[in-house]
Every structure is written in structure tokens, then in C-alpha cells.
């Protein structure tokens, strides 16, 4: 029966290849509407082999339970939103035909449907669907699909889909005990070229092979393993860069307040949190008033988060921190108290539970690169971190404020003598550092839970990054963040996430003891504080 079906199908393919005026016959429609399962199966084959462009929609609808059969063997597709269309012609309908009911299926019919759908997809117009169908055959290794695969392979143009089809072909050859050794060795080579965990699993599961084939299989597994390792290293590095860019975002504001000004701001994490909550509020306002702009909400959130966190930072600096300059330990304690109050304030205002911040559509989804699947959100955060870093560098090196900031940090009294209002420069510097933390909050809201504890999770890491990279040096912060991120992710496969983090912390603590001024210390003489 199945052999017959595939024969029929092969014939169908040939027919489809010719620009035939193929159409779904009344007979096929009658079989589908018959209510008899065996007849329905025949009907499915007739439709599938008809070569009609509507065939795939009909079979898909049948498989989803959306195909209705009515009096006079009319076939209607009812979408889940209630819109109706004639199955054969595709014309929209206003009302259901008389006695239209969903066609009932049993498991046998469903199996037939799945196989037919797979084969139809192999010749779909969309390369992604063709490829998915080929991958499905690669996994099922269904011998009956061999003819369809070969037929599709013969006229496939897309190289990626060809590789998948060839792999599916090879997988069927390999698992078929009747094929010869030469064919099998060739098939092993194809599978090795495909690579990946599935291919390795397939090769490892083979048994009862001749020595010649077995040797080829062992070699192929070796090749696949090497490739897998290489890709996983690349993947780890990418994840590391991604984590590093998150750390960079969280730490770069701290590099300003702690690194440049020497103020220990334990409430820095809460500035990040304020940024994340600003994003939440912006999204809520947009969702309720102008839903069409939702995709652009982050563009509004970034400057607002900068202003909110920066204003809070400046207020803190003016009212409290400036009284504690030169007393770093007291500053540490005071700002820690502040962080507790900010957390509790947010908890009182927004509740203790996580708040949902949505991803705009352009940030969701992923793309494939070689053996990797990379999400857009991570990619955008990496780019965003670089942009923030460059912008901050420009502010420090190219603006009057940046010049004054550097002057005040290098020699406060001299700067004051030159007419720089050091108080205001302090205040603005702290505001910029806090504002950048707020911007980091916008990015973090996309990948982390927005809760009052958001900032706490980053504060120790951020300090580590700044201290590791060298206080007062933005480039050091960049290198520090990226190397910490990458080391963390490279350790993870061997040590596990928690142990990896512990190892990094211990190594950092040892590192700080060897080089207390970090990787890139500022050169010059400093008075022992």
C-alpha cells in the first residue's frame, strides 16, 4: 500500500514537474468528504498527487482539523479566526455550506497525512520549508520517502536545501540493510559533511556494519566531533561577548563614578534598576495610548532612562555624597543604605514581583550562522554596548565637559584655579555615570527579569570588572568586561554555571591581590590614600 503510494507520488512529482493544468478532481473531493477512513486516505493521495497548488493548503487544513465537508461534497476551509474559503478554488465564502462539518480523522489517516505533508513540503516554493521537510526525513529515515527525496534532489537549486536533501538520502541508505558497502561509505561521507549532534547520533546508532563501513563511520564521527567542538568554542565565545557586553553596560557607569571620581556607589545597581523600570513605564504608556509605536518604545526609553537615573544620581550627589568626599568607607555604607531604600521604594510603588517588559518585534527571533543559532536580542545588546562605550569616550575626549571632568580628576585644585566650577563638574560627572547606568537598565530589561532586585545581581560583578580593568580607565573596563564574560562562558561547560562563577570570583580576588591597580593602571605617582 505504502509502496504503491510512493510510486503514485513519484508519478505525481513527474506530473507536477511538467507545467500541467493540474487540478483537484471531483472524485478526490468526494473521497475526502466520504467519511470513510480508507477512502479519505485514497483521497489524500489523489489531492497530493494532483499537482494543484491548492493541494498543500487542503492537506494542511485537513491535518489541522479545519477542513469542513458539506452537502454535495463541497470542501471548505475554516480558519481559527472564523474566515471561510472554498478549499478547491480558494475563493472566500460568506457562510458555511449546508451541513458542513469538520472531517474526522483516525491515527491511520493522520500518519498518511504527515507523510504526504512532508513530501509536499519537499517541493514547496519556500526553501526554508523544503529544508525543514528534508530535515524531518533525515530524522525519520522513512524508506518510502526515498523516491521523493531523490526526485526533489534532482531539481533542487538551493545549495543549503541540497545538503539537507543529500543528508536525508544518505541517512536512508545507511539505515537500509539492503544497500551495498560502497553506497554506504559514500553516504557516511555525506553525513560527516552535514555534521551536528544529530549526524553523530545517527552514525553512533548504526550496527551490523562491514569493517570497511565501520572504519568510515569511526573517521566520520571523529570529524564531526572536531567540528562540534570548534563550533561550541565559537558559540561560547559569542555568549561570552554577549555576557561581557552586559557586564560592560552595567560597569561602564561605575567606571565613571568609581573609576574617574573615586566615589564608591553601592547604589549603582539601583540606577540600572531605575532604567529598567523607566522602560517598563514607557512601554505601559505606549501600550495604552499609542499601541502602534510599541516597536519603537525602546527608542523613547533610552533618553528617558538616562534622564531619570541621571537626575536621581545628581540629586544624591548634591544632597549626600558631596559631604563624604575623601571618606570612601563612609560613602560605601551610605550608598548601600541608599540602595536599600531605592529598592524598597520601587517595591512599594510597583510591587515585589517581576514586571513584564516586552521585546519589540525587531529584537525577537534568531538567525543561523554556520552551526550556531544567534538571537537578535543578544546581537543588538552587543551593538548597543559598543555604541554606549563609543559615545561615552567621545563625551570624555571631545567635549568641554569631558575636558573639565578629566582636569578635575587629575588635579582638583589646579582645575579650580583655572576657573572650573569643580562642584558642578562633580555633580555632572556623577549624573552621567548614573545616567549611563540607567541606559544599561533599558538593555537589561530585554534579557533579565525586571524586579526590584535587578541591580543587586550586577553590583558585585560590576565592581569586579572596574577593579580588574584598572580604575580610572575606560578601555580597561572594556577589556575587563569582555574577558570576564568570555572566561565565564568558556568555563561553564566544564564547571557548570555556579562553579564557573565561583572560580572566576576566586581568581579575581587572587588577581587583585597580585595587581591591586588592575590590568591597566594609570601611570603616575599617587599619594597613598
Amino acid at each position: 500500500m505504502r509502496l504503491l503510494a510512493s510510486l503514485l507520488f513519484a508519478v505525481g512529482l513527474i506530473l507536477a514537474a511538467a507545467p500541467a493544468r493540474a487540478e483537484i478532481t471531483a472524485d478526490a473531493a468526494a473521497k475526502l468528504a466520504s467519511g470513510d477512513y480508507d477512502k479519505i486516505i485514497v483521497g489524500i493521495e489523489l489531492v497530493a498527487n494532483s499537482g494543484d497548488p491548492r493541494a498543500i493548503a487542503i492537506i494542511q487544513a485537513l491535518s489541522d482539523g479545519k477542513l469542513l465537508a458539506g452537502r454535495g461534497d463541497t470542501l471548505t476551509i475554516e480558519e481559527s479566526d472564523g474566515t471561510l474559503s472554498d478549499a478547491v478554488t480558494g475563493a472566500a465564502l460568506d457562510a458555511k455550506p449546508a451541513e458542513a462539518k469538520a472531517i474526522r480523522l483516525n491515527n491511520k489517516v493522520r500518519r498518511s497525512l504527515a507523510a504526504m505533508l512532508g513530501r509536499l513540503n519537499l517541493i514547496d516554493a519556500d526553501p526554508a520549508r523544503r529544508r525543514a521537510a528534508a530535515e524531518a526525513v533525515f530524522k525519520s529515515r522513512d524508506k518510502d520517502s526515498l523516491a521523493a527525496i531523490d526526485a526533489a534532489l534532482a531539481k533542487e537549486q538551493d545549495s543549503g536545501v541540497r545538503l539537507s536533501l543529500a543528508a536525508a538520502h544518505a541517512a536512508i541508505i545507511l539505515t537500509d540493510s539492503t544497500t551495498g558497502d560502497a553506497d554506504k561509505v559514500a553516504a557516511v561521507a555525506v553525513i560527516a559533511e552535514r555534521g551536528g549532534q544529530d549526524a553523530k547520533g545517527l552514525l553512533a546508532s548504526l550496527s551490523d556494519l562491514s569493517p570497511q563501513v565501520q572504519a568510515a563511520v569511526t573517521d566520520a564521527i571523529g570529524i564531526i566531533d572536531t567540528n562540534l567542538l570548534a563550533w561550541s568554542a565559537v558559540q561560547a565565545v559569542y555568549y561570552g561577548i554577549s555576557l561581557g557586553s552586559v557586564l560592560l553596560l552595567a560597569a561602564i557607569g561605575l567606571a565613571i563614578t568609581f573609576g574617574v571620581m573615586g566615589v564608591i556607589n553601592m547604589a549603582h545597581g539601583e540606577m540600572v534598576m531605575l532604567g529598567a523600570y523607566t522602560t517598563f513605564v514607557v512601554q505601559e504608556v505606549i501600550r495604552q495610548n499609542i499601541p502602534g509605536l510599541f516597536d519603537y518604545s525602546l527608542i523613547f526609553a533610552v533618553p528617558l532612562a538616562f534622564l531619570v537615573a541621571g537626575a536621581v544620581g545628581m540629586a544624591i550627589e548634591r544632597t549626600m555624597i558631596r559631604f563624604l568626599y575623601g571618606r570612601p568607607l563612609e560613602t560605601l555604607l551610605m550608598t548601600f543604605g541608599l540602595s536599600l531604600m531605592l529598592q524598597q521604594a520601587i517595591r512599594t510603588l510597583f510591587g515585589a514581583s517581576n514586571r513584564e517588559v516586552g521585546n519589540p518585534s525587531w529584537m525577537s527571533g534568531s538567525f543561523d550562522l554556520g552551526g550556531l543559532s544567534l538571537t537578535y536580542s543578544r546581537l543588538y545588546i552587543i551593538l548597543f554596548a559598543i555604541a554606549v562605550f563609543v559615545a561615552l569616550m567621545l563625551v570624555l575626549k571631545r567635549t568641554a565637559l569631558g575636558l573639565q571632568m578629566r582636569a578635575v580628576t587629575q588635579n582638583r585644585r589646579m582645575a579650580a584655579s583655572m576657573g572650573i566650577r569643580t562642584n558642578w563638574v562633580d555633580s555632572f560627572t556623577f549624573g552621567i555615570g548614573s545616567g549611563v547606568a540607567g541606559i544599561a537598565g533599558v538593555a537589561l530589561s530585554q534579557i533579565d527579569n525586571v524586579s526590584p532586585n535587578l541591580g543587586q545581581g550586577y553590583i558585585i560583578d560590576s565592581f569586579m570588572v572596574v577593579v580588574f580593568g584598572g580604575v580610572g580607565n575606560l578601555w580597561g573596563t572594556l577589556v575587563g568586561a569582555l574577558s570576564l564574560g568570555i572566561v565565564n562562558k568558556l568555563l561553564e561547560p566544564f564547571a557548570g554555571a555556579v562553579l564557573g562563577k565561583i572560580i572566576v570570583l576566586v581568581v579575581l580576588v587572587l588577581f587583585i591581590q597580585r595587581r591591586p591597580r588592575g590590568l591597566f593602571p594609570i601611570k603616575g605617582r599617587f599619594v597613598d590614600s
Partner: protein
Amino acid sequence: MIARKLAGQQHSLALLVVAGLLGLAALIVVLHLALPADSAFYISSYAVALIGKYLCFALLALAVDLVWGYVGILSLGHGAFFALGGYAMGMYLMRQIGTRGVYGDPILPDFMVFLNWKELPWYWFGFDQFWFAFIMIMAAPGLLAFVFGYLAFRSRVTGVYLSIITQAMTFALLLAFFRNDMGFGGNNGLTDFKDLLGFSLAEDATRAGLLFASAVVLALGFIACWAIAHSRLGKVLVAIRDAESRTRFIGYRVEQYKVLIFTLSAIMAGVAGALYVPQVSIINPSEFAPTNSIEAVVWVAVGGRGTLFGAILGGILVNFGKTLLTNALPELWLFALGGLFIVVTLFMPKGLVGTAPAALAWVKGRLHRAKPGPARPSEAGE
């Protein structure tokens, strides 16, 4: 020697503190055990456990004051030493459960049976003996502090850098103890304790005894710190605090002094943790949370840094306030604690002990001035 020191005129305050501590503890024990439950002066088991807990926190505060107040090392990791001492005691208490656990295994604690472990990890051996546990209560935090301090002080990590790496240390330990494979009960920690040295922990008398023991240990810790602070050693420590480089150039080995005091202080914190665990009946990784360590610093700051007596006062007062506030208005506690940090650092850098006399004198001065009559020169340093 200590007795001679205490007998001296200038040490009357220390004597007063020790006597007050022991006297109050004894009074509480008597009121708890001897009076009927309906008497107006009866102290409930709940209050006894609470006061016992405060005394342990006061001992931790004392340990923090010794390093922060006298040597200027702001440790944000003393909670780790406290927790390590607590875990050592908890391991002893776990082994005392024996077959009374849920699974009734004579050797393995319940959580190990639950994790399907077959035998006791090597580091659990010996904890069925109290003397061994007693040594470990001091050795575990002491050793960690010694190694950590040796590495840090030798390479002259000071100030906020030291604070941050001590915080990283306790954070790393927090993460480590959350892991089930560590063999310390994962995030549930150690609990379900039954008895200590043969005394049931459910008994009122045992709890009262623990409270009294805490008071005695606190008094001993106070005497030890007092003796250190008023010895030649103490003067060197203050010199290190105020001018580290100068002390080094005079010829003192600053690192050695720092390591010594840091280790001693860690041992005190460990003992505090060990006394704390049987009174609250549980020890879990949250004790390692960086917040706990910073809270301990604030107790000292509130009481008055570098006064010893202030640390005890701060430890007890702040925690008493925490109990009151978390019962009445739980959401206000963090505001209050955060506010405390800010008020103390901005307005009362000397803490209660340092500020109260000046404040009293100021109030007195105002009263005298307000009174009509012959003008008298004010004694207060306004």
C-alpha cells in the same frame, strides 16, 4: 593580668559592661524559668530565643568593631565567618540527630539520604564529637581569614578594594553553599536539630542556658577585645588605622598585625555563629548574603565605631528595632535600615556612644542658658 587591668580605675566602664551583661542575662534566665507563665514579669520562650539571638549578633558586631574600629579594615565579609562557625555547629547538631531523622539513617543526615548519597563525605568525619566541632567552629573561619588576610594584606590591598573583595568572598561562598554537591544541604541548609551535648533543644532550660552561655561568651569576647585595645598591641593597631605607611616606616610589620587581628576577629564571628545556630534551629546559605555582613557593619556604626561597648549596644538596639518594625510594618524595615545607614554616616560619624554625651552636654548647655540668673560658662563643647 586581665583581672588587674579590670581592677584599675579607668576600667570601671568595662567592669560595668561585663557585670551588666551577666547580671541581665542571669535575671532573664531566672524570670524565664522560675516564674509561672501568667506572671507579669515572666519572659516567654520566644523572647528568650530573641534575646539570645541579639547577644550573638552583638558578639559579631564586636568582632567587626575590632577590625574596623581599631585597625581600619572595613570587612564586608564577616557574615561569612559567622556562617562558617554556624555551619560547623550545625554539622555537629546534624550528627547528633542519629536515627531520629525522617529516614532514620544512623549516620547520614536526611538531606544526604534524600540525594541518594551512600557514605558520609570526608569533611563530615569527626563532627559527631563535640570537641572536634568546637575546634572546627574556630578553625574554619580562622583559617579562611588567615589565608585571605595573608594574601590580601601582604600585597597591601587596603580601603575600599579590601571591602569589595571581602564582599566577593562572601558572595562566592554564598553561591558555593547553595550547591547541593557541596554536601552542606544546598539551599535548605541544616535544620531539624534535636539536642546539644545531650540537652534537648526544645527544652526551656536548654534555651535559657544557651542565652546565658551567649552572654558569658560575649562578656569574655568583650574582655579580650578590651584587653587588646588597651595594650601596647592596641596602640600599634590604632597607629596602623590612622597612618599605615608611617607605622610601617617606623618598623612595625603592619601585615602581621593585620592578619593577627583579622583572624582573631573571624574566630569571634565564628563562635557567634555557632551560638546563634542552636538558638534559631537552622543554618542556611542566606547567612552568607553580602547584605548580612553590611548590616553587621551598620550595627557597629550606629553604636559607635572603635568603642567596643558601642558595638554591643548597636548590635542589640538595631536588631531590637528590626524585630519591632518587621512585626509591625514589614515594608518599612528596609527604609529604616537604609535611612539608618545615611543618618549615621552623615550626621553621627561617632555613633551613639560618641554622639550621646555631646548631645547631652549640648542639651544641658541650652537649659542652663535658658534659665534666668547669673551667667555660667558652659562646659559643653559646642
